[in-house]
């Protein structure tokens, strides 16, 4: 019985690992294209406006302006101003309603595929605040370096990848940008998409959730975590935590988006970092025994404020606020459920092995360190967060991480010596869930000191 079960669980975990790995591999990756000295105009159609980035290769800019421009020279404040003026004098947008207001900000030097580019942030504002198809006229660099090419790409606010609209060159300085088609997605579906994207890319929200899930298969006994083998109870705790977090952030998301409450961003961001710190410590040693749901709900209020600020920033909700709010929140909840589905099977299995205390403490420790760094960064104690690269990396590889955890769980489960045998909290009689715990036989194959 024990062997067949362990084989089955092992096979299940192996399958999960394969699926996650496949997802990680098949997930769309940006192609490593190698643009040699071309300009890219990257546009994002949003509600009421089009934002974008213009990436100008500095060596080509030097040719076009007939100046010995270097990266250092470009970085001078006066020079950036001058070049911003140059860009604006070579770019315009218009639709049937008339010319759009074009503004440019930023002006940072970025190395793109090994070539230094001057990157400006642009905003194109239609006169009637309706984003429709428009004509983009652009000839920076091109007006002089006639063999230059300018790649114009477009995406909607809900998309990550850009689609090429066309190439401007000596034959063509004006291009029709089909932003209306992109803007029609602006609405309920786009809001869902946005919600998914925001939480999937928001390392802090996910980390908070994970910290709360870590002790879900455990039960607090005084100041220590003890294993709980009651699958039904553990599952209910997961449901409680997720629901409490959802209720918490939904309340403040709604209040914030409707304009009833407003908290400075820095305070909200700092409190979110604090929430991870607290839940991370709680995962190591129970601070509030049985209180994960309350932590989730309480700090969920803070996370909701951050969601509301984002919703406002993106200019969503001008049309139908309620639909956008619902869609955005739905996206967030869906992503949370995906995270739970990806992680909980592995955590539940791991919790039945003796490595779980180590895994839990390490994961919680990482969470605490990252949260502390965020807190320091957001309260302006430190200028640069040394862990940003790590968090970006973690966020970029969600399926790899989930797969790795599944692999660890499978390996741990496959080593009989690591499997726990004693059931400390017997399942209540009469429940109909066949949990692995009740099926595991209690022969003393694992020795305890």
């Amino acid at each position, binding site marked *: 019985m024990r062997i067949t079960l362990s084989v089955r669980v092992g096979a299940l975990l192996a399958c999960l690992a394969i699926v996650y790995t496949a997802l990680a591999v098949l997930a769309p990756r*940006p192609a490593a*294209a190698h643009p040699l000295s071309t300009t890219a105009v990257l546009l994002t159609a949003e509600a009421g406006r089009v934002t974008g*980035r213009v990436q100008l290769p500095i060596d080509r800019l030097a040719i076009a302006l007939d100046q010995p421009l270097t990266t250092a020279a470009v970085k001078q404040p006066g020079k950036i101003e001058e070049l911003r003026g140059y860009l604006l004098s070579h770019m315009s947008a218009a639709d049937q309603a008339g010319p759009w207001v074009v503004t440019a900000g930023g002006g940072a030097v970025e190395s793109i595929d090994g070539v230094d580019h001057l990157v400006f942030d642009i905003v194109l504002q239609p006169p009637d605040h309706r984003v429709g198809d428009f004509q983009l006229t652009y000839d920076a660099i091109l007006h002089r370096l006639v063999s230059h090419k300018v790649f114009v790409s477009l995406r909607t606010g809900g998309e990550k990848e850009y689609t090429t*609209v066309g190439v401007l060159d000596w*034959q063509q300085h004006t291009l029709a940008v089909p932003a209306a088609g992109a803007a029609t997605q602006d609405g309920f579906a786009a809001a869902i998409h946005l919600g998914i994207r925001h939480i999937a890319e928001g390392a802090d929200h996910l980390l908070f959730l994970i910290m709360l899930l870590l002790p879900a298969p455990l039960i607090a006994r005084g100041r220590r975590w003890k294993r709980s083998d009651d699958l039904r109870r553990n599952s209910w705790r997961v449901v409680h935590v997720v629901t409490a977090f959802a209720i918490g952030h939904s309340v403040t998301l709604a209040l914030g988006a409707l304009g009833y409450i407003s908290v400075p961003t820095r305070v909200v961001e700092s409190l979110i970092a604090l929430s991870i710190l607290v839940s991370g410590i709680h995962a190591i040693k129970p601070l509030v025994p049985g209180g994960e749901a309350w932590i989730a709900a309480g700090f969920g209020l803070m996370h909701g404020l951050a969601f509301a600020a984002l919703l406002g920033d993106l200019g969503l909700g001008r049309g139908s606020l309620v639909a956008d709010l619902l869609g955005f929140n739905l996206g967030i909840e869906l992503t949370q459920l995906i995270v739970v589905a990806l992680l909980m099977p592995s955590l539940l299995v791991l919790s039945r092995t003796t490595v779980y205390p180590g895994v839990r403490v390490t994961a919680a420790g990482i969470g605490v360190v990252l949260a502390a760094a965020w807190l320091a960064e957001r309260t302006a104690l430190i200028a640069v967060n040394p862990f940003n690269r790590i968090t970006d990396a973690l966020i970029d590889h969600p399926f790899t991480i989930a797969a790795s955890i599944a692999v660890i769980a499978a390996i741990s489960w496959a080593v009989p010596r690591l499997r726990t045998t004693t059931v400390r909290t017997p399942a209540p009689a009469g429940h109909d869930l066949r949990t692995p715990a009740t099926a595991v036989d209690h022969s003393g194959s694992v020795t305890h000191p």
Partner: protein
Amino acid sequence: MREHLKVTSGALLSTVLVLAAGCSSDDAASPSPSAGASSGSARGPGGGGPGGQGGPGGGGQQITAVNLNTDGVSPGGANTAAVVQATNAFLATLDATERDKVEYAFTENKARQTWSNFPATAVAREGIAMADLTADQQKAADAVLAAGLSTAGAQQDANIRSSDDELSRISQEGASGFGALKDYFIAVYGTPSTTEPFMVQFGGHHLARALTYNGDKVSQTPQFVGTEPTSFQKDGVTVEPLKAESTAMFAMIAALSAEQKTTAKFTSGTFDDLLMGPGKDTGVFPASEGLQVSQLTAEQKKLVTAAIQTYTGDLADAAAAKLLAKYTSELDQTRIGWSNNTGPTDENSYIRIDGPSVWIEFINTRSMSTPNIHYHSVYRDKTNDYGSTKPS
């Protein structure tokens, strides 16, 4: 003790996992993910350099099908029968699957217009790769080109293809896209015939041949030739695939007086690559500028003719002679000019010959693959590209 070990092993496993996730991101490392990702997918293929996988949905080089008719203006003299025979002999070496890859309807304009100065990994070519053919099939394919081209033209193709082997050898970064066999493709449009139009398309990274036959008439344009590096050793012999073109073009400008040179310098702008490269098939050419050949001495005019001959002379001799005669007769309405520099190894040296029919551009350009400049050159016929008059 044992419990401690287990806790430690769990901690180790977790740490490894986090580190692994952290490290694996390094290959896609970019400080701002959105900027990095966007630039990758939003731009085109690599600029002649390796690693140019025009991303999925990435625009890269845009080829828009134009309406190609069969009314191109050709002075004739085509050796159509010999090309038909060689093409049929090549097709006979292929099995059904291969033939399906090679044979296209003559009306597939977009495919006919598909050529590039990027390797096939960046801009996929039509037809079948030479690497996918047996040695005998390759020989039959080469025979098609040998029939359509002059000895010099066929030799130039071989040399250009060698330059891609050389580039693959010396290139610092992923040169997997280059090679004399894997980057060169052949396709046949229409049924080879001495009376009906058909086209043989051959090319790869730095070569595009479009030989369009219509009875006695023939077109060898658009013709793109290039080489990176410009000169290299192969089996102890120096190979310079564009030696004839570069020598003649630079000699033509070098022979100008200081005053003529000033008049010949372009004022409309500056250049770092060709204007009438791939995809520029709408029949719209830049406004004419530069020095009128009618202002040149007889000796200088000879150098212009000699430069044009290095392009027209790629075609089988009889038709090439008729074509050169036509362009020579138009010399007085032709202009030549230059921009940036006039030396064969200078940065962005750009030279153009622009007549009523003939259009030749030559430039010293750059890639990320090698430290020196390399050559790109395009030859078009304003009244006969793809055997077609100006597209509608």
